[in-house]
């Protein structure tokens, strides 16, 4: 939409013209705002709390305690010989990141509607901000993972070189889902109410509380198209030395990219009319 040189931009405003790709140049010109909004989310999240950023550790910590008691001690789930606490911690920390990011991203347009109606900036900033702001929580919560690893005297394997791949994948999933759900939520507020159920479904559809090897072989491929499976398997492979089975990881990567790209297109289509239908 913006043409001309940098000093005097020329903008043409026209009716909605269907499908468009993300305007990266425009997004780039708003990078300062983007940084400030991420920073605002980080700063404001634990405002006026006693424990502050400790919550980033405490939330997954309590989840791990509960799951370890129920699934590790009582149900005695098979974990390929890995202590259950270690097994679940490595999965729950990235899962907590992805689930909280998805919730925040899916509500980002609805909760930002007062700002939407008053000033223009690329709407894409809304669903992109929560997954990036919550990354700080993730990094803090990783202390928990390394603490447990030290306790069980486990060292990361050489597969740790893939860390950037799985971190990017882990961020890509909530961004993709967030673009889809936030633009759906502006018309259908049902999204908000379906979210808890959706997340419940996701936690059980990925090998967070059990091993992926428990899935029957013939369904394993289909199962792997869930991008969360790829993220969790990746983290376990890197940190615990379980088998890094790429043939069950790439399907998740493909679907993460598909969700991201289609989400971006759908978001672009919906973003201009946000204010009229919200």
């Amino acid at each position, binding site marked *: 939409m913006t043409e*001309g040189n940098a000093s*005097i*931009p*020329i*903008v*043409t*405003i*026209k*009716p*909605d013209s269907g499908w468009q790709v993300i305007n990266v140049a425009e997004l780039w010109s*708003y990078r*300062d*705002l983007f*940084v*400030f*909004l991420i920073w*605002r989310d980080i*700063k*404001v999240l634990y*405002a*006026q709390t006693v424990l502050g950023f400790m919550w980033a550790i405490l939330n997954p910590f309590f989840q791990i305690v509960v799951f370890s008691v129920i699934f590790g001690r009582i149900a005695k789930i098979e974990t390929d010989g890995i202590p259950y606490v270690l097994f679940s911690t490595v999965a729950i920390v990235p899962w907590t990141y992805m689930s909280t990011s998805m919730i925040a991203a899916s509500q980002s347009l609805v909760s930002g509607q*007062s*700002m*939407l*109606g*008053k*000033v*223009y*900036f690329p709407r894409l900033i809304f669903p992109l901000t929560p997954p990036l702001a919550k990354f700080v929580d993730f990094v803090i919560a990783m202390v928990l993972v390394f603490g447990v690893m030290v306790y069980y005297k486990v060292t990361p394997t050489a597969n740790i070189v893939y860390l950037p791949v799985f971190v990017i994948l882990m961020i890509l999933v909530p961004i993709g889902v967030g673009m889809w759900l936030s633009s759906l939520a502006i*018309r*259908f507020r049902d999204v908000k109410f379906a979210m808890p159920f959706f997340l419940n479904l996701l936690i059980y559809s990925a090998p967070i509380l059990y091993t992926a090897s428990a899935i029957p072989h013939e369904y394993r491929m289909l199962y792997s198209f869930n991008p969360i499976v790829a993220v969790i398997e990746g983290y376990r492979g890197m940190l615990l030395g379980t088998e890094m089975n790429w043939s069950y990881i790439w399907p998740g990567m493909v679907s993460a990219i598909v969700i991201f790209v289609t989400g971006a297109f759908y978001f672009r289509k919906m973003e*201009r*009319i946000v*204010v*009229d*239908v919200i």
Partner: protein
Amino acid sequence: MTTAIKVENISKQFRLGTKVEKEDSLVRALFSTIKAPLQNYRRYKSLYSFRDNDLSPDILWALKDVSFDVNRGEVVGIIGHNGAGKSTLLKILSRITPPSSGSIRIVGRVSSLLEVGTGFHPELTGRENVYLNGTILGMRKKEVDNKFSEIVEFSGVEKFLDTPVKRYSSGMRVRLAFAVAAHLEPEIMIVDEVLAVGDAAFQKKCLDKMQDVGSQGSTVLFVSHSMPAITRMCERVIMLKAGSVFMDATAHDVVSAYLQGERDNTAERIFTDTDAPGDTEVKLHAVRILTDDHRVTEAIDIRRALAIEVEYEVLQPGWVLMPTFALWNGEGVNVCVAVDQDLTWRKVPRPPGRYTSRGWIPGNLLSEGMFTVNVTMWTLEPVRKMQYHVTDVVAFQVVDTLEGDSSRGDWKGDLPGVIRPKLIWETGSNIK
């Protein structure tokens, strides 16, 4: 002159999203509850689909075929009644919402102040909010850095910069927010009623700042309901009516046309038999504001007289009436109280029937601004009694001109004071 904004045949339609059906029986209501999800889905899905020739009553044309050009450096006012399409036009120009058809070409960076303080977060400090708000309004961090001390000085909240904004008074918040907005240096500035905020002194500061922006060669689009502000700020004014450009001419011409056509009900209040204030002796029927040529109007030229007309009915004979009214200005000051002094009925009991009392206020007396009227009816004989007392029954606006023949002379700036009488001046080197 180069064109800064070129608006070509812009239209905008909205769906009102109204629910059409209503259930009249329990069974039907139950049935429709089951059907509701599907209907809701269709309704919310169709919120933004328009077919050609769709004549559904659900569709509202907020703008229809609006075209105009604005040259670089022009300060253009946009006026019109509520619902005329002003806000929609500004929202399209600032890219908040797209037009349904037509196109706009804008040369230069646009900043819109549709409401100051957008994105202010209560938990962040004043300093942090200046940066956040600045970048939201389109500044780069570097620009905020450069302007920071100026912004803080303009706002006058230096002492509280590191206090969370939630601890600010609302006035402080507004001042800080406007300070940020005022220091944008866009080529094109879109302003909507910012002047409705802050105290009088701060409003003046804002107006001056906007005039500055205009005189520095920026293009300004200014929407306001305040005719004094519009005439002071703009050379050219566009008047919208029912979504179309009704008039596009010099500020003076358009504002007078607007005021002529002004027949808002705030200038006239007619009571029905059932809601008429009063008791068994006297009832109030109507109150209106009249110009010196007996038109009902909300807007009065400061140079011309106006009348406050009260129409009432005496229901019982033998009472001596004393109609009065009181005038209050926009700052809540009681400007005056006036009592009917017409000699015909002074101390004379009136027979039943309809009466009209008209009190004339001369031109060149009241100051500029909004006035509201309270009317009261006292009876003195046989007993002293207040028959009715109605506050804010009508309101009007006094508008000063810039033609030099009112009390302001050739001064075009802000002019304070409760009254603005035109005095007799004698000036010379040796006068007696």
